[in-house]
């Protein structure tokens, strides 16, 4: 921006300030500002922007001060003014009441825009702006380990690694580790599944929370052979013990082991996720431990950043690499807490913010165009009022009052509608939203709404109105009575506003259409498994099961009993067991195939999805066999040959070019791992979600290595949801201590996996529809205004012999050329914007011809339909009345 532009812009800004100041000092003020700006420019772009901000605040501040100062007038004067304010208010109310339609239109548009912005702003506020409910939350960091060589972004932390960091690091005030876990909590009344966590004793020090009753467990209790103790969350304490202090010292049966209650922690500490109780981690630094769902959290020393911490941990990791991880497979990383937990929502939030920004601009343009048209139509009235001695200030004040009333109404309705829409959204989104996020109304959201409505009405309502009454009295009177049309300036502004509205609406419509098409495409992906009439739930057997033949036999016997019991139930067509059902968990392992060349150093070993499954699982889940056979009850017997079933991706990855892998052999990573023969070859399923690629995967006979927690899949003849009660009763009959976990139909699971995409596709579709409605309202209003201004001209034309069809055509052509210009500009912009969405489009090209054609055709057709009645009305005007119009 050149100095000349700066000067111009500042002059424009000065118009917002008090007139007396401007008239006297404009040149001097400009000189001072330009000096300031030049200074700021030397310090960079941000400083220059800040200078503009400060200048604007300075001028608006002066305006406010002057407005307040005029109050300090003598007593009598003040009284008179108050009286006038009352009469202004009455007049304004009456006037707004008479203009019911356009008032409702403006208020409606304003509240629509504000409601949509509140929804999106609340989402962004809760996810990004609001801090975690802990002391100095910016000093909290999330720590985990990553293993690029295993294709795993997050692998979890082993206790020995954590213990090493805790001793060696130089960056943390405190650091703690947790593992999310579920517990079977049983008492006389039955069994319940409770989410909890094993945490190290320093967890509360990191979060800086204090037990509200009792104490946190100490370092002695947090050792491998420490006593069994538990700390409850406030919610669980109130639910189970009614908030009584005598809960301390009582015991809780968790996974069939009694735990002594030592303390209660406040609910804010239920972080992350929904840990409702804590038990000691009981880690052993000498035992290697396994990777899993562990995470760690640290409180940085003041002044340090996550990057510093990562550097320091990598330094300490050197010793671990030297000792037990020579290939440096696993390395720690550190992120800010918010960065970690809000990461998944960044793209969606950005998309929604942009979309709602566009919507808001459309709404503002609409408010502006309606207010401008209204003001232009009132020039005559204003002219008369000025002529009979009303002061300009009084008229400006009255117009201002009008806008304030509209802003208040629009803001209030928008706020309520926004709150309601947000509630609706959160209920629909269900567990897609993180638990720690608080979507309540806070001062920022309300402030945002108030600011939005005030700015919109003043900038887009009052300013155009003032603009319209500017100029001298005679001009205003003449223009409406003598001339044939309204001022060309006002008309041009109106046309530009409508063009802009349509351009923006086109962008939203195209993007919404693209996302919807992508959603449709995703929904029609073949999942590779049966979705209809399948019910799944988990069963977890409590207790420690060792890795020996005896406990394997015990587990297998239990699972066999369970399958038999469920198969015998009426209405059951099949029962299957698996460790991870589709769209459920991931259990990764590593395999080598016979005769494969050794991997080059640094080449990642593909992670294989490991799934022990019962013979009935494949039929129940509808997994299709390509060649070979499925499991039988004989597979996996101790002493028998080891067998395995692989999927398409596994075959493609490990035996490229081989059509049928049946008969080939593979084994685990250890040198003594037994060989397993492939007996079956099945089709891939979309295990990780319809949009996600499949990994190599294999199935093992359940009998070979039965886990203690399994998913039971039941195929029913009737509605699977109606089967829930029967399933619960059957499990209770088998073992009353066992809760039935996460009961869901496959249909529901599939819907949930799509929830996020459904949500923002719908949101964008709704925004697009709203923008469309606003734009149509805009063109309708402006065309109607233009026609009303051209009444005389039309009358003359008709009197001179123009046909009615010609009049209709002229009116339509004028309005459609405005709309068309907007649509064309919008299409070009939309293709550019859609490119940014590419990662969410699931292969739909950003320039998808059908969508563009639909959007353009639809917009123009709808604009024509909306303007048709106005055009017809213009054509039916009686020339005599028309010619008289504007005279009276």
């Amino acid at each position, binding site marked *: 921006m050149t100095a000349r532009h700066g000067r111009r812009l500042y002059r424009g800004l000065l118009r917002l*300030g*008090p007139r*007396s*100041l401007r008239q*006297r*000092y404009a*040149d*001097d*003020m*400009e*000189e*001072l*500002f330009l*000096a*300031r700006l030049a200074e700021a420019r030397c310090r960079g772009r941000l400083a220059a922007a800040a200078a503009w901000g*400060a*200048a604007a*605040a*300075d*001028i608006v*501040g*002066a305006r406010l*001060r*002057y407005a307040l100062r005029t109050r300090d007038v003598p007593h009598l004067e003040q009284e008179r003014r108050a009286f006038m304010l009352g009469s202004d208010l009455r007049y304004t109310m009456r006037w707004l009441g008479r203009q019911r339609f356009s008032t409702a239109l403006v208020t409606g548009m304003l509240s629509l825009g504000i409601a949509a912005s509140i929804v999106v702003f609340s989402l962004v506020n809760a996810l990004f702006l609001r801090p975690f409910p802990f002391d100095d939350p910016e000093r909290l960091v999330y720590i985990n380990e990553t293993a690029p060589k295993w294709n795993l972004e997050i692998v979890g932390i082993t206790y020995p690694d954590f213990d090493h960091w805790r001793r060696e690091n130089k960056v943390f005030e405190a650091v703690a580790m947790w593992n999310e876990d579920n517990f079977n909590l049983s008492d006389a009344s039955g069994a319940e599944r409770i989410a909890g966590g094993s945490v190290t004793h320093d967890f509360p020090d990191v979060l800086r929370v204090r037990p509200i009753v009792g104490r946190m467990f100490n370092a002695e209790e947090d050792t491998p052979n420490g006593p069994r103790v538990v700390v409850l969350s406030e919610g669980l304490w109130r639910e189970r013990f009614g908030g009584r202090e005598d809960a301390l010292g009582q015991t809780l049966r968790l996974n069939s082991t009694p735990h002594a209650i030592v303390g209660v922690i406040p609910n804010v500490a239920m972080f992350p996720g929904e840990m409702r109780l804590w038990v000691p981690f009981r880690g052993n630094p000498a035992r290697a431990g396994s990777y899993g769902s562990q995470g760690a959290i640290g409180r940085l020393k003041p002044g340090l950043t996550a990057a510093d911490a990562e550097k320091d941990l990598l330094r300490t990791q050197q010793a671990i690499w030297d000792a037990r991880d020579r290939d440096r497979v696993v390395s720690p990383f550190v992120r800010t807490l918010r960065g970690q937990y809000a990461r998944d929502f960044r793209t969606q939030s950005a998309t929604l913010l942009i979309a709602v920004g566009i919507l808001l601009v459309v709404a503002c343009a609409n408010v502006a165009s309606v207010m401008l048209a209204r003001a232009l139509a009132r020039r005559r009235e204003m002219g008369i009022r000025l002529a009979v001695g009303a002061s300009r200030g009084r008229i400006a004040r009255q117009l201002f009052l009008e806008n304030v009333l509209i802003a208040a109404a629009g803001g209030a309705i928008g706020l309520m509608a926004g709150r309601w829409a947000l509630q609706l959204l959160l209920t629909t989104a269900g567990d897609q939203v993180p638990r720690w996020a608080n979507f309540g109304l806070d001062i920022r959201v309300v402030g945002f709404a108030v600011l939005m409505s005030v700015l919109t009405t003043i900038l887009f309502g009052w300013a155009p109105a003032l603009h319209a009454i500017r100029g001298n009295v005679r001009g205003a009177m003449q223009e409406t009575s003598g001339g044939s049309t309204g001022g060309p300036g006002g008309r041009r502004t109106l046309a530009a506003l409508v063009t802009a509205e349509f351009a923006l609406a086109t962008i939203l419509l195209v993007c919404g259409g693209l996302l919807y098409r992508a959603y449709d495409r995703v929904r029609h992906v073949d999942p590779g498994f049966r979705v209809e009439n399948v019910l799944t739930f988990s069963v977890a057997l409590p207790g420690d099961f060792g890795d020996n033949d005896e406990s394997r036999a015990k587990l297998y016997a239990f699972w066999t009993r369970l399958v038999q019991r469920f198969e015998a139930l009426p209405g059951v067509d099949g029962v299957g067991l698996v460790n991870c059902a589709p769209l459920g968990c991931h259990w990764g392992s590593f395999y080598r195939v016979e005769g494969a060349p050794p991997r080059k150093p640094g080449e990642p070993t593909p992670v294989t999805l490991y799934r022990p499954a019962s013979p009935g699982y494949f039929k129940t889940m509808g997994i299709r066999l390509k060649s070979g056979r499925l499991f039988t009850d004989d597979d996996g017997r101790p002493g028998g040959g080891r067998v395995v079933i692989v999927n398409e991706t596994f075959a493609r990855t490990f035996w490229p070019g081989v059509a049928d892998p049946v008969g080939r052999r593979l084994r685990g990573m250890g040198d003594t791992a037994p060989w397993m023969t492939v007996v079956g070859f099945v089709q891939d399923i979309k295990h990780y979600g319809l949009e996600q690629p499949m990994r190599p995967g294999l199935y093992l006979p359940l009998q070979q290595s039965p886990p203690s927690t399994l998913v039971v899949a039941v195929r029913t003849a009737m509605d699977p949801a109606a089967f829930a009660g029967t399933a619960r009763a059957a499990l209770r009959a088998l073992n009353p201590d066992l809760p039935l976990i996460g009961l869901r139909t496959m249909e529901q699971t599939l819907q949930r996996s799509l929830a996020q995409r459904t949500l923002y596709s719908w949101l964008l579709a709704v925004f697009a529809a709203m923008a469309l409605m606003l734009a149509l309202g805009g063109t309708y209003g402006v065309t109607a205004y233009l026609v009303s201004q051209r009444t005389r001209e039309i009358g003359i034309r008709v009197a001179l012999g123009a046909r009615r069809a010609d009049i209709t055509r002229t009116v339509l052509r004028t309005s459609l050329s405005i709309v068309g210009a907007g649509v064309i500009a919008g299409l070009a912009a939309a293709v550019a914007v859609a490119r940014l969405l590419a990662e969410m489009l699931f292969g739909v090209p950003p320039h998808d011809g059908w969508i563009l054609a639909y959007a353009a055709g639809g917009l123009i057709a709808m604009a024509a339909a909306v303007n048709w009645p106005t055009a017809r009305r213009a054509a039916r005007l009686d020339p005599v009345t028309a010619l008289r119009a504007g005279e009276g």
Partner: protein
Amino acid sequence: MPVAVKTSWYYILLALAAGDSHGLGIAREVQDLSDGRIRLWPAALYGALQELNALGWIEQRHQLGESEKRRYYRLTRAGRTALTAETSRLAGVIRIARARTKPRAGETS
């Protein structure tokens, strides 16, 4: 009733006490006097000058030479009196403040 002297006014009067100056000069001087803490933006500065002028504390004149259109401001007798009065008032405040914030016996700073 004496008029309350705003901080920005005080600095402006102080700047003019050293000699006549124009708007830009006053703004710079005020910034220096306040160690950069007070940056007067145009509307605030000229608003204040207008008010001070109305109170009769400063007067405005055109000085030919440097730049024809530049307006210079001069402290009037009334303005100087107001400045002195405000200064002694502030001095009184500072005396009280010093006495109250003095470290008490037994307390280490």
